[in-house]
């Protein structure tokens, strides 16, 4: 998927990939991360 120039909402998970990690990944691919959060489902 080409994220360059796309707006991204990054929802991460505590025991998986966290929100800040997703944000870094998406931004490195040129995305504009408009919201990032980590959820904990336990």
């Amino acid at each position, binding site marked *: 998927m080409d994220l360059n120039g796309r707006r991204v909402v990054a929802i991460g*998970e*505590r025991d998986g990939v966290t929100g800040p*990690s997703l944000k870094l990944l998406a931004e490195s691919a040129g995305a504009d991360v408009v919201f990032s*959060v*980590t959820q904990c*489902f*336990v």
Partner: protein
Amino acid sequence: MSPTPAILSASYALAHAPDLVRYGSKPVREIGRDPSLLPRITGSLRPWDEVVAYPPNQVFIGNLAPEDLASIPRPWYENRIDSASPSGAFGRMVSQAGLYGLMKLCDDFDLLTLDGELAAQAGADLVDFDHRRGRITGVDPAELRTLAEESDGLDLHHDGRMAGFIRTVHDQDEALTASVLLENLAGKATAVLAFSDLLRNSGIGAREIDYLLNCGEEAVGDRYQRGGGSLSKAVGEVVGCVNATGSDIKAFCSAPVHALIAAGAMVAAGVHKYVVVLGGGSQAKLGMKFGAHLRNGVPVMEDCLASMAFLVGPAGGDGMELRLDLAGKHPIGAGSSPKAVYEALVVEPLVRAGLGMTDIDKYAVEMHNPEITEPGGSGDVPRMNYRTLAAMAVLRREIGRGDIDRFVAERGMPGFAPTQGHIPAGVPYLGHALQAMRRGSLDRAMIVAKGSLFLGRMTQLVDGVSFIVERPAVARRTG
């Protein structure tokens, strides 16, 4: 020479609480929006005998080893253990009547009123409980109804009837409403049960305990300090620890591991000889995933409050040594990817000790029961964490890519703990580890806990801490 700290004893308890599920945070909000959910929830709750015979619960109290669970087919709620006992090698289950009784005997402010029938049943169910049983008293049902009609608070149910009431203390203080007080009293009562059993099973006298560290997730206090209060001394008072003081360590799910490291440090420094780390159950998390359980046609399995207590003191007997020199931490600057977290918590302390990942016989990570989490799409949390650890062992060239499944099977274990926040954080394994080390079948285990700091909306950070426990003979060789 400073003492070497050791974990000397572990105790766990499960309190069956089907009629408190409706007051869990998620159910109470959803039932408020759609009252037709209440009969669907109550109709999906398990009876006492099924809760006792549920294999993960039998592992939690020590009647089965975690490894035994791997050989029991899923769903575990259908493959129950015949003639299971509520008493285990290092834990016990208590009925809902017993739970109400514990809350009543822990109630120093007449918050809770029970009817006479429930009080009598509670007393009978707690016949082997050592403290304050004379405080479990009840009132006439008409008196209970009048109290409930004339007061602000919550009706409490048992066996299909309104059988109790907990009152709101202050009409302008959100921290002293009946729902908050119920959470705190449930936390106190269940911690008291695990602590009382710890004293009985370890043989140590209550007067010998010097310091208490509560690590539960409840928030005690009034409007001026909310969760800034403490439960440690409140629990210690009930079980007769007249020579102890205490404080609470708050760190979300990872608090028990922070607390055990702090307890070990107190012993090693000579500040205190015997420290007890304790934690009660989380009322707020009862029924947390009920929606997914109803959608999938499985029982509402978040039906028990869990609690635990650990005795930390000087090594020398048959306890397991706490290697404070190998404690791991997730520093603020470490980054929050799974790899960064486990580099900090697992690899860094091992490298410091000159050990490899395969020098750890067992890892205890977040031990959530997958049968509870999978219906909601959260997956098998322990398995995800074990696979991450195995992948890191591959990256470090300690095992081959084809050895991942074996690493997970040999050095991990199935999740068996209820989703009670701080309870599953690695520490449910400590009772099993103690038994295995006493048998000589386990040399070294690492306990790893993670905390979701971001939930309080004050930081995006995660947290984590770890420690290693060793069989004494092994510790003497490597320490």
